[in-house]
């Protein structure tokens, strides 16, 4: 962990940015453990407590992954939007790194939603896929952030990459509410958001538990990616100091 020690002793960390000490790996691993336990617990709870669905039977259990995944994907993209804004405002590279990590995890979760959704759709709707706005717009969301990530891959200059992906991330996040509302705007096969009142409380409990568990997982992954990126940057910075001697090492 010496690298981390260096990080924390480094004085030139701009104020207002998350301090790397927050990412002491021990803390992260602990969080990971908690998230794992929560996830397993929530799933068990959901599976045990909730009765098999009337017409879907045990298939309905998919919901406990499908839905939390979807919700947390939205959360991740929200993080992308906020940190992109922060970057454009503050020009602090850390915000860019955070946005990137969140985008990666968000894309994965969206992918999960898609896959599970279509697995679920096969028995319930009789097809893997149908051109229903909710489905399509979710796929679109997925592709938007695939685009975001590939943009990052194709641009070397870190500053340029940061600014461009901040812009793209922001515009992309504009689409999240559209996806969410798509169900309302277009009459669709996919069911609309239901309020706890319309859903059997047992389902609500399971859903809530899993949503929280997924949130923890989300945080864990984002932190891990973010921290890795930070450490890479720190290594570069150290090379920088080495390369320049002490002269002119005061990076902006």
């Amino acid at each position, binding site marked *: 962990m010496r690298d981390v020690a260096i990080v924390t002793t480094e004085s030139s960390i701009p104020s207002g940015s998350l301090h790397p000490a927050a990412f002491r790996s021990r803390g992260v691993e602990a969080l990971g453990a908690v998230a794992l336990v929560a996830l397993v617990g929530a799933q068990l709870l959901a599976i045990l407590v909730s009765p098999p669905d009337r017409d879907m039977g045990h298939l309905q259990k998919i919901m406990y992954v499908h839905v939390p995944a979807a919700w947390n994907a939205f959360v991740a993209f929200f993080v992308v939007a906020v940190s992109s804004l922060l970057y454009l405002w503050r020009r602090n590279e850390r915000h860019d790194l955070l946005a990137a990590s969140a985008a990666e995890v968000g894309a994965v979760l969206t992918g999960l939603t898609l896959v599970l959704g279509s697995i679920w759709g096969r028995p319930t709707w009789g097809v893997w896929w149908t051109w229903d706005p909710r489905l399509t717009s979710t796929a679109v969301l997925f592709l938007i952030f695939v685009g975001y990530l590939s943009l990052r891959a194709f641009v070397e200059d870190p*500053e340029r990459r940061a600014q461009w992906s901040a812009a793209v991330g922001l515009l992309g996040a504009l689409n999240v509410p559209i996806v969410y509302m798509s169900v309302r705007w277009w009459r669709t096969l996919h069911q609309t958001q239901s309020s706890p009142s319309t859903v059997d409380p047992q389902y609500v409990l399971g859903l809530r538990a899993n949503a929280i568990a997924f949130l923890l997982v989300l945080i864990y992954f984002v932190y891990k990616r973010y921290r890795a990126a930070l450490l890479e940057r720190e290594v570069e910075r150290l090379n920088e100091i080495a390369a320049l001697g002490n002269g*002119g090492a005061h990076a902006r």
Partner: protein
Amino acid sequence: MSTSTGTNVPALRLSKIARRYGSRWALRGVSLELAPGETVAVVGHNGSGKSTLLRICCTALRPTAGEGWAYGWHLVHQAAEVRRLVAFFAHVPGLYEDLTAWENLRFAARMLDRPESEIEPLLQRVGLWEERQERVRGFSAGMQRRLALARLLLGRPRLLLLDEPYNNFDPAGIELVNDVVREVCERGGAAMIVVHDRRQGAAVAHRFVELADGRVLSDSVAVPEARAHSRAVAQRWF
């Protein structure tokens, strides 16, 4: 504003400029000062960081570390003001090949908001007046450089950054470049010229700065006798 009008303000001041491309350091802390009216020739082996240095001075690149000022304006934070004073002459002419010489300059004039009346004398000067209605696509290497030079003058720059300006120019063109540099300096401007042939540089430069591996190796006053001599040679040969 006051900063830019002060008389004692250096035309260019760089302090510990460093620039990294990926993991490779092109510049490792370059500091130098350029007084108004002064011309400095930058020499150095291939890959020593000359072009990178000029790009940073014209705000086309941002330094990874270090700071710089042109006539008191900060190269990064006041880029807009810097761009009004600085002109960069790159390896490539950067013209629109499907437009004619005239159209290229008219576009530049509008972007810099200068009157179109300034275009004709410039085209005359760089010797492209006859070709003004022809597409740049068909221009020879040197003709394109000449047009790029005209565009650069359109901006009435006070700090010239010329990257190997003599390439592709015939002897007459080389004299043209030298005149331009002298002119700007007499108007109280300054110039930084990348050259490989010290003899060519000596024709206009007051100072030679030698770069090596992104560091300033030497910063010497040009030998005046050398300049005289090079003039002589020039006369003998052209």
